[in-house]
């Protein structure tokens, strides 16, 4: 790891200031992506601004169907939150399958969506839920936020403070984990509100998370796994790598979508 300078932020404002006054600084949340990347010298920020002690970035609130999860909330906290599970069990299920217990004790929702790894789980959840990403300066709809592989709408120096969404009528998540890393080889999140169904796919797209419109249309007609019999997804914009070909992933998208709907119907 290259040299770096560590700072502990006391508030979001403090973090913004520290980031501005640094040369090539980066925010540090759980470190489960950033420290790992620094160890292999894939990242070399001049300064690290630690958000883990910022109280305003912690906690989950559920008021009826309105859910707010602060950016610094860990995957373990999301997984174990009883009230959140009653409002939207699929997001807890998703969090409980990220990495391993030790990663879940440190990794945060804010860090995950700021990083926007093309195989990360949360981007699929938030895109399907039609969530809003709240930052220190504005609110961004998930549809506009995830702009590509490791790309987001965040500006230089912008801090994610929370995500919020209205719990849908039904939702489910199914992932086919890469057997070594546990990241999604393909993961599908489905959410139904009345007659509207949103379906988001992670791990499979060539350019990060995306909405599967053919599957959305089929499920809007009938929210049942059987509605996806004969539905296929084009392999054109899907990823091929040593783990799976684009064709294989195209098939997995439909299979995971069926499982996610089955899970949603509980």
């Amino acid at each position, binding site marked *: 790891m290259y040299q770096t300078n560590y700072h502990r932020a006391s508030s979001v404002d403090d973090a913004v200031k520290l980031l501005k006054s640094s040369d090539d600084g980066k925010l540090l949340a759980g470190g489960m992506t950033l420290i790992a990347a620094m160890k292999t010298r894939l990242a070399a920020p001049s300064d690290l601004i630690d958000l883990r002690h910022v109280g305003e970035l912690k906690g989950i609130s559920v008021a009826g169907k309105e859910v707010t999860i602060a950016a610094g909330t860990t995957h373990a906290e999301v997984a174990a939150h009883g009230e959140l599970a009653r409002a939207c069990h699929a997001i807890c299920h998703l969090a409980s399958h990220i990495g391993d*217990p030790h*990663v879940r004790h440190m990794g945060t929702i804010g860090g995950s969506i700021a990083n926007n790894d093309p195989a990360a789980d949360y981007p699929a959840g938030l895109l399907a839920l039609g969530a809003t990403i709240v930052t220190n300066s504005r609110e961004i709809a998930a549809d506009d936020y995830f702009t590509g592989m490791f790309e987001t709408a965040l500006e230089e120096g912008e801090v994610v403070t929370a995500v919020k969404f209205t719990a849908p009528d039904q939702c489910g998540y199914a992932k086919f984990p890469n057997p070594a890393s546990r990241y999604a080889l393909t993961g599908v999140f489905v959410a139904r509100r009345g007659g509207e169904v949103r379906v988001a796919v992670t791990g499979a797209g060539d350019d990060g998370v995306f909405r599967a419109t053919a599957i959305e249309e089929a499920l809007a007609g009938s929210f049942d796994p059987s509605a996806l019999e004969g539905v296929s997804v084009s392999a054109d914009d899907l990823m091929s790598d040593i783990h799976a070909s684009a064709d294989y992933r195209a098939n997995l998208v439909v299979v995971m979508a069926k499982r996610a709907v089955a899970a949603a119907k509980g």
Partner: protein
Amino acid sequence: MSKVEMMVNGRKVAGEVEDRTLLVHFLRENLGMTGTHVGCDTSQCGACVVHLDGKAVKSCSMLAAQASGSDVITIEGLAAGGELHPVQAAFKEHHGLQCGFCTPGMIMAAVDMINRHPGGLDEKTVRAELEGNICRCTGYHNIVKAILAASGQMSAGAARAA
């Protein structure tokens, strides 16, 4: 350089370290506590697991500076008064190790797992919860057996105490 201060196994420790120093290196090199191992550089193997403020974390993926002010428990902190911790005793009894390299992390992960499941554990849960700990020798079978035995013993102990 950063000044770091933390409780390690109930003892207050302090030191001056480069900001880039990982917690595991602070433990091993500054404090000479070599029980915590490093088995990979990809944050995947779990040989480095310690408890930070009561939760299992990978000490290879955290800076010492991040842990400053915290309460850290390492494998050296488990045995009390010369008596093995029940999980350590169960690993010995059930032959839950061969070369022993993964063992400190396995045991710290196991203690955390048992703490989070006070009602007891089943085999499926233990195997899923060991996702972040890799063993090159044992095939996991005896590790799982040891954790199940320790969990049974510890929840029976807790039930008696209640």
